[in-house]
């Protein structure tokens, strides 16, 4: 179980106003999954279903008005309640975060290369030649060496994304969290970015790819988890989930793909401030789905589904 990230019953909520008087946003409800080395788990779902909050909770970057429940463990060590001193040793060197908008994550007043060198120095104190390591990292992510002499605002979106990936890889972390790394990129750059992540998984990293780009997820994911209204409603090996979705929401998402009919799921997900008892999809498509009051993921072999009868896998 080395380098395995276990998320166990993780819930996150935001309390608005003093003591939550202005309402509570339930961003993540009872999420459980295991991220193993060599696997690329794609976490997919519509905007605002809690995907990014899940990543922030794993890295301990939630805002101060957030509350968490459940647990997150890396190699059996708790991350959710760990003090900042422990997280400092984990971030970067054990868990790397590939940011959503890489350009804004870079200090605007310093050259890209010097920021990467600094990151390498901080994460690999014994490295005899950080500059050479940065050039090697740049080569790994397909970043031309002359880009290292540029300032962040001089980079295009795709290049900045590769700088973000290089920074995330600086400490050679076994676990990589990529939070919407393809936002704002065109098809070609999306494919190149996710292929890089798939390459990391092939080299033995455990990769969590958070995206609403199903096509990208289908391209590279070994496993897929589908999130709807703060809950994971289906999880399993990518080829099985994509070819035979168990949850009607997964089927709906797949139906929105251009090669599968291009039909979006009608309606809207429920507001996270007033979540219904079940998984919530029954409110949106009563003809397809009936919610059970307290849905949990029910496992059948390597696959699991919430709120729906399981089939033999």
């Amino acid at each position: 179980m080395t380098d395995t990230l276990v998320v166990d019953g993780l819930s996150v909520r935001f309390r608005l106003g003093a003591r939550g008087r202005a309402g509570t946003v339930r961003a993540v409800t009872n999420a459980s999954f295991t991220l193993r080395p060599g696997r690329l788990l794609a976490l997919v779902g519509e905007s605002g279903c809690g995907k990014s909050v899940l990543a922030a909770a794993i890295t301990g970057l939630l805002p101060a008005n957030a509350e968490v429940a459940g647990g997150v463990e890396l190699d059996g060590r708790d991350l959710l309640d760990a003090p900042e001193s422990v997280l400092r040793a984990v971030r970067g060197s054990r868990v790397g975060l590939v940011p959503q908008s890489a350009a804004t994550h870079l200090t605007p007043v310093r050259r890209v290369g010097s920021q990467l060198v600094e990151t390498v120095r901080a994460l690999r104190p014994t490295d005899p030649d950080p500059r050479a390591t940065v050039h090697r990292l740049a080569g790994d992510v397909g970043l031309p060496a002359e880009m290292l002499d540029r300032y962040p605002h001089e980079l295009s979106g795709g290049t900045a994304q590769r700088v973000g990936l290089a920074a995330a890889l600086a400490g050679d972390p076994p676990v990589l969290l990529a939070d919407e790394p393809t936002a704002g990129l065109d098809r070609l750059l999306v494919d190149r970015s996710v292929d890089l992540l798939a390459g990391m998984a092939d080299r033995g990293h455990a990769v969590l790819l958070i995206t609403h780009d199903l096509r990208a997820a289908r391209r590279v994911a070994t496993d897929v988890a589908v999130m709807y209204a703060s809950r994971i409603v289906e999880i399993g090996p990518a080829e099985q989930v994509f070819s035979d979705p168990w949850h009607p929401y997964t089927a709906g998402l797949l139906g929105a793909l251009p090669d599968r009919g291009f039909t979006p799921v009608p309606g809207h997900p429920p507001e996270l401030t007033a979540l219904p008892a079940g998984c919530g999809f029954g409110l949106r498509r009563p003809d397809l789905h009936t919610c059970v009051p307290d849905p949990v993921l029910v496992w059948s072999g390597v696959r699991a589904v919430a709120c729906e009868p399981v089939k033999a896998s």
Partner: protein
Amino acid sequence: MADRCTETATRPHGDRDSRMGADRAVGLGSPAEPRWRSAARPRAGTPRGRAAGRARSRLVAGAGLLVALAVAAVLVPWLGGLDERLVDYTAVRLPPSVAHPFGTDAQGRDLLLRGFAGLQVSLLVAAACAVVSTLLGALFGAASGVLGGWPDRLLMRVVDTVNAVPHLLLGIVIVALYRGSVLAVIASIALTHWTGVARIVRSEVLSLRERTFVDAAISGGASRWRVLRRHLLPAIVPQAALSTVLLLPHAVWHETALSFLGLGLPPHLASIGNILGEGRAAVLLGSWWIVTFPALLLVASALAVAGIAAWWRDRALPRRRSELGL
């Protein structure tokens, strides 16, 4: 926090269970109920601990103290029915007693009456100074930031010039031109302290006007005046108000300093500065109470204002407010 929520929508999520209540709920609710705890972590700029509770106690303590001082400053001279200017050479430099709780000064004047009468004068002078210099500074800074170009450079050189002269010296010149009067003291403090506000407001405007929401307003057809009024000023008001509040104790000190030097308010008018200036010689004779109690009034009012300012700072910006759970 040990709050619990059932997964059903029937129970509101805004519950406020104590730890004890949560333990009791174990037998009642489902065993799957999560144990909630705060995700707050120490970060640069984020206060530790229970920010909301501390902010509230700051406000209550600060406002309570300030109201008490203000009420006392009005009521003590009035209720006492006595004259704080009454000179009584049979009661010179008496230590605190029942008849004179704060003692008496070298002319036998009651220091309780004189201290609060002085506080009243000092606070009024300070409030006037703070308001005038904030308005002046905000106007200057906003004009400078919005106009840009050569008007900006010109206005900022004026600020530099005013700053280049020591505050106290410039204040003394203004007071000397008009002799010791309340208006002269207000003018001398206000005219030397607006530059800080001007710089803060200008830098805020410069930073805000590059934000994308200003681009969005302009692309939506808003005029420069409308952008300033509807988009920039509301974001600046918290900063400007904060600097007003912080100027209050500073203006009290400044008035104190001027009066201490004998250049402030006329000697017959009690002010904290006058009292301290007159009392300093008596300290050497062992009459510690003459400076101690009026100085404590000054410190208490400054602390009260600082407490309110801290609460306001946490409260004013919507984003920070929600992060602190206010």
